[in-house]
């Protein structure tokens, strides 16, 4: 077998634990229920979301059908899938290309830099199908069956779905490879990589918003509706290749084929460009990234004296360690800390994307109306809790210890204290998200201070059960064997499970809010009810966490 193909196969094997799974299925049949249960839990909890999404797509298709543009549903889904892959792909690619532990082993192999990149790219690409297929399959099936498409459509759709992640990922890769070459200077390269990554992500988010040309006056809107493909073009302007994919799929005859081939050709060209660039600059940045600066300076007298910390409690010492390790690991900062403020930043962009001051003023005027205010405040609480729930610092807190877990097992600190430190660290990240949301709402939406304070307290209370339950999932089944920090955090099922569980808590708290609102309780009462529910579930979750930790920490073997 060619070394290149064998390398890609090895990368896929290692990353998806194929050999490990085989071992588990053949040798350790006893543990078979675990992956099955996890898969079933994820499927069951995703089904309602998928059903909601499918329903939404059906209504878009029907709406499109009425104005003679049923393909709108395809355009929307292609844009959505590709933007999601592009934006989230940036951090993902950065982790896979530059922060995997196996790179140290790969560099000495007789492989060209582009071949190493290809192997890593293949892994990311396969992973992205998990994101792109649920987004694309429903609309492709809805459009195909709804407009009775022939075999050619289904064939083209299969090929398109297989290649869809390639283009946004290739763009993300080129951006990241160039960025890492630029930021690789001096001792602050980790920090620069984080800042650069954030700029790329938010830049592409903001860029896609500016790209969108929304028709301003009624005549333009009419024109958009009248012109064939008008809406598709408008939607697709956020990410133009989505238009080619849509037209390539639904149009028959030569023009359809033209667009289809154009999409494939540009994807291939971008991948080749990525290979070309990586062959030139990938190793330069990678190798200097592996170098660790040593200061090797001798401290004497009083300077040395200051380095001995005063005795703190074990919980405090563990809390400090958690924070230090998190903020010094670029991937944890990007996926954890930055991830937790992505929600409020998107909110800020949405406010700023209002086309002119007049629109913003109207929006603000609407929000301060007494009949709208309760809903605005509750939506604000929802955004805060959503932000807290998306935090994967808690659901990967034990997993991130990886090979250093022996220290946790060796030190004379009870499991209860160890998880308390992890809880406090994860909770502080959620709290940063909640407080940022509060600040943005206060400054930009100009909601009354009292309400923002009240809703922030509710947000902080609601984040307690979310953090505790997410942490509990990781304590219950930590992923301690990993080769890259990426695997510990992003490729960790506990992260997904934690988010789903937080989503369940959000639904429960939402139900409390809607229920109390429906029976006519005024806003302060509604907030008090949500707060009380949060405290109740929060207390229960902490007791559950401590109980599970005591048992599970004993069982963990290092």
């Amino acid at each position, binding site marked *: 077998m060619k070394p290149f193909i064998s390398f890609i196969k090895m990368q896929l094997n290692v990353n998806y634990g194929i050999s490990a799974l085989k071992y588990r299925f053949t*040798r*350790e049949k*006893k543990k078979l229920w675990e992956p099955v249960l996890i898969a079933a839990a994820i499927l069951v909890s995703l089904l309602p979301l998928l059903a909601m999404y499918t329903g939404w797509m059906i209504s878009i298709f029907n709406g499109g059908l009425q104005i003679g543009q049923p393909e709108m549903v395809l355009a929307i889904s292609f844009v959505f899938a590709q933007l999601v892959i592009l934006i989230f792909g940036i951090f993902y690619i950065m982790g896979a290309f530059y922060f995997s532990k196996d790179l140290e082993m790969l560099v000495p192999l007789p492989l060209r830099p582009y071949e190493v990149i290809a192997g890593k790219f293949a892994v990311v690409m396969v992973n992205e199908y998990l994101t792109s297929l649920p987004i694309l399959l429903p609309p492709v099936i809805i459009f195909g069956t709804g407009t009775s498409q022939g075999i050619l459509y289904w064939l083209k759709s299969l090929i398109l779905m297989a290649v869809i992640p390639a283009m946004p990922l290739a763009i993300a890769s080129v951006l990241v490879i160039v960025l890492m070459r630029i930021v690789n200077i001096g001792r602050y390269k980790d920090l620069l990589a984080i800042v650069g990554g954030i700029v790329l992500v938010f830049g592409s988010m903001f860029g896609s918003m500016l790209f969108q040309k929304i028709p301003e006056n009624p005549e333009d809107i009419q024109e958009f509706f009248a012109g064939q493909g008008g809406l598709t073009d408008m939607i697709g302007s956020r990410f133009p290749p989505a238009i080619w994919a849509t037209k390539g799929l639904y149009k028959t005859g030569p023009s359809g084929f033209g667009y289809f081939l154009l999409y494939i050709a540009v994807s291939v060209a971008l991948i080749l460009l990525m290979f070309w660039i990586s062959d030139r600059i990938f190793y330069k940045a990678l190798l200097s990234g592996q170098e*660790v*600066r*040593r*200061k*090797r*300076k*001798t*401290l004497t007298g009083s300077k*040395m*004296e200051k*380095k*001995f*910390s*005063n*005795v*703190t*409690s*074990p919980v*405090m*010492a*563990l809390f*400090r*360690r958690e924070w*230090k*390790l998190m903020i*010094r*690991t670029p991937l944890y900062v990007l996926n954890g800390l930055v991830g937790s403020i992505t929600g409020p930043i998107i909110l800020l962009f949405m406010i700023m994307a209002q086309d002119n001051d007049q629109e913003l003023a109207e929006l603000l005027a609407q929000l301060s109306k007494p009949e709208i205010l309760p809903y605005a405040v509750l939506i604000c609480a929802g955004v805060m809790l959503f932000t807290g729930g998306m935090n994967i610092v808690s659901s990967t807190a034990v997993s991130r210890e*990886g*090979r*250093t877990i*022996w*220290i946790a*097992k*060796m*030190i*004379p*600190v*009870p499991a209860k204290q160890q998880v308390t430190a992890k809880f406090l660290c994860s909770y502080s990240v959620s709290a940063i998200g909640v407080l940022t949301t509060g600040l943005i709402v206060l400054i930009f939406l100009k909601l009354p201070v009292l309400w923002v304070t009240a809703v922030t307290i509710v947000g902080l209370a609601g984040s307690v059960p979310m953090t505790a339950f997410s942490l509990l999932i990781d304590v219950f089944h930590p992923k301690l064997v990993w080769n890259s920090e990426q695997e510990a955090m992003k490729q960790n099922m506990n992260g997904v499970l934690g988010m789903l569980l937080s989503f369940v808590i959000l639904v429960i708290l939402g139900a409390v809010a809607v229920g109390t609102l429906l029976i006519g309780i005024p806003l302060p009462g509604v907030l008090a009810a949500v707060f009380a529910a949060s405290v109740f579930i929060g207390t229960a979750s902490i007791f559950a966490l401590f109980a599970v930790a005591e048992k599970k920490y*004993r*069982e963990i*073997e*290092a």
Partner: protein
Amino acid sequence: MIEIKNLSKSYSKGKIKAVDGLNLNVSNGEIFGFLGPNGAGKTTTIKMIVGLLNPDEGSIIIDGTDIAKDPIEAKRKMGYVPDDPNLYDRLTGMEYLNFMADVYQVPVSVRKKKIEYFLEMFELKDAAFDLIKSYSHGMKQKIALTGALLHDPKLWILDEPMVGLDPKSAHLLKSQMREHCDKGNTVFFSTHVLEVAEKLCDRIGIIHRGKLIAIGTIDELRKGDNKDSLENIFLELTEK
């Protein structure tokens, strides 16, 4: 200091017995060398003593405390360094040592004295403020050793402590081990270097396929034959 009774541990659903009915007593003031070929069960035994692995059967008592019943108290009495110490790469050496001092609640005056002493001894003073990520294997080993000894534990458990250490550091460590035991404390360590075991240990235990096949002082193992080297004894016992 260490009482191990009927200790067993197996992997792969009982198919591979890593440790098989081990009985062992190590007294106060003793340097005990634990020898055996690769895969004999040395590291598995050590990991069970320090609480990293749970035994399938048997008990381990550390200075009167059962590790299964009161693990926290038992852990306070030990200082452990694994054969390949994976430390927190993104902490500096000094941050790691302060962290260990905090979890063992070592008072400031004591930690200051101890840290300075070990850093000086292992020539790590200049590197203490760099990230552990930048350390060589030997340097990590030395920082792990320092961290494990800050709280002045009665019992040192060291898995292959000489691997990765330069000759000077290895020599210093051996002197430290002797000094520690002369004060009435105990050192339990595994090694492949038979010469070290021969010169340093008060008693030696040889484990093979999970079972303790020989135990005693060097003289006892020689059975009166002074010409027989530990290497010959070891090979004779483990090639059966």
